[in-house]
């Protein structure tokens, strides 16, 4: 078998040596059998140097972007691909070691390899140097951050001056002037909110490479959201319950997941006038999945709108909904973030009675040793 496999590899090596992505093939024990030309260029190691070694043997030694080594068997993406026969659905961004000691940002895809008879014969990793792309995305993020400041400052000043006029701080105003100034004030607030949402979207749109993919403590993240949203719910005299399982963890982008969940919880509170909003998170061992459920007793979402609410700028055509303001960007961002993490969102709703959003994300429950 091994001999046949080696022969097959030598056949495909001609192709693999032409492409610009690093490719290596291993046996089931993750020992390297093949290492293409691009892999040599990206890492500085020649094929002769690496044959028979494992990538953890001081070769790639992938770390997450925060620098945590992923070589322990449970975290090693190749081990996961081979042992659970799960190919990556979305490429992972990790750092790989170069022979000169520096770290290269690479996007990796992995899969188990099988013989024609279905027997497990090894694994394959394809990795692409994305350092330059990430640099561009970081530039874009810096640009949006400064643009955001530049746009918000004049708007905020305008609000301040309008308020001075309305409060009579600059002299008495008559009723008609008050009415018109109030209108300007409200329109200006709307504009500020739209700009805020559009900037949020600008930061998310097309920036897949700037996703921080680190091992993160989902329990802590959700607890901190529950904490801040319970105050908001209290302001509306709603009950807010949360029931979050301890030690939930996943590989992902803290900021973005936090924004995604904020959008769902924020909507639940926004569209609920009485009753309760609850947040629940549980781990399902059977699916290696974390289910995060946000349930409200709010106005609900009509059947016909359920698919469309995840589209950009979509808003339910209803005066109660329109009166709340918003651009229809929140759930679009949420859906993007969740699917980028390999997850999905399910939605149940009864108009007039409430809505339940459930987000499923690949994740794990930390054991004591980890």
């Amino acid at each position, binding site marked *: 078998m091994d001999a046949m496999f080696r022969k097959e590899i030598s056949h495909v090596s001609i192709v693999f040596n032409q492409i610009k992505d690093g490719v290596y093939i291993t046996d089931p024990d993750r020992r390297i059998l093949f290492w293409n030309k691009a892999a040599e260029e990206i890492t500085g190691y020649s094929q002769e140097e690496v044959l028979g070694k494992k990538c953890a043997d001081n070769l790639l030694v992938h770390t997450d972007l925060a620098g945590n080594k992923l070589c322990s068997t449970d975290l090693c993406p190749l081990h996961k691909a081979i042992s659970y026969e799960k190919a990556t659905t979305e490429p992972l961004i990790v750092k790989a070691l170069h022979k000169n000691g520096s770290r290269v940002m690479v996007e990796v895809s992995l899969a188990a390899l099988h013989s024609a008879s279905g027997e497990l014969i090894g694994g394959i990793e394809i990795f692409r140097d994305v350092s330059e792309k990430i640099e561009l995305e970081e530039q874009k993020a810096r640009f949006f*951050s400064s643009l955001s*400041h530049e746009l918000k*400052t004049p*708007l*905020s*000043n305008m*609000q*301040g001056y309008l308020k*001075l006029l309305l409060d009579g*701080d600059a002299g008495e105003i008559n009723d008609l002037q008050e009415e018109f100034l109030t209108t300007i004030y409200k329109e200006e607030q709307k504009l500020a909110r739209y700009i805020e949402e559009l900037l949020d979207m600008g930061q998310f749109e097309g920036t897949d490479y700037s996703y921080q993919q680190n091992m993160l403590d989902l329990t802590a993240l959700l607890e901190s959201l529950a904490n801040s949203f319970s105050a908001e719910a209290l302001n509306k005299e709603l009950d807010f319950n949360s029931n979050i399982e301890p030690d939930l963890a996943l590989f992902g982008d803290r900021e973005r997941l936090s924004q995604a969940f904020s959008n769902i919880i924020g909507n639940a509170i926004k569209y609920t006038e009485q009753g309760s909003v609850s947040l629940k998170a549980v781990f399902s061992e059977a699916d290696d999945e974390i289910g995060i459920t946000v349930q409200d007793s709010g106005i609900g979402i009509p059947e016909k709108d359920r698919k469309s609410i995840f589209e950009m700028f979509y808003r339910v055509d209803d005066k109660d909904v329109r009166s709340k303001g918003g651009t229809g960007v929140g759930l679009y961002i949420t859906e993007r973030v969740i699917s980028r993490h390999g997850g999905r969102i399910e939605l149940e709703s009864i108009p007039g009675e409430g809505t339940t959003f459930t987000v499923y994300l690949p994740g794990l429950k930390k054991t004591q040793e980890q």
Partner: protein
Amino acid sequence: MTEKQIILVAEDDPGLNRLISFKLQKEGYQVISALDGKEALNAALNENVSAITLDIMMPFLDGIQVLKKVRPVKPDLPVIVLTVKSRENDLHQALELGANAYMTKPFQPEQLIEKLKQVLGSI
């Protein structure tokens, strides 16, 4: 009210500076406006100010440098720093250098006045 308290408003955005200053005057404070870090430092050291609202990003000298020079001379002078949310490092540095409070932009003048009253101990 006896002698008016003097507040130094160090903020390089003229629109915001005037807005804060106007509102402070309405509240019965006397105001010195500074539109850059040099003016701010000069006023902070040479005028009998009761508090400073200090923007961090200013031309010539930023708020951090102003604070560094003012603190040794006036260790008890209340200082409120004004920062942008995305620049957390600035904020940490300012608080370490002895700023008494901070406001994150954008904010409304009422919020700043409330904070000012807190640091002046007048509420």
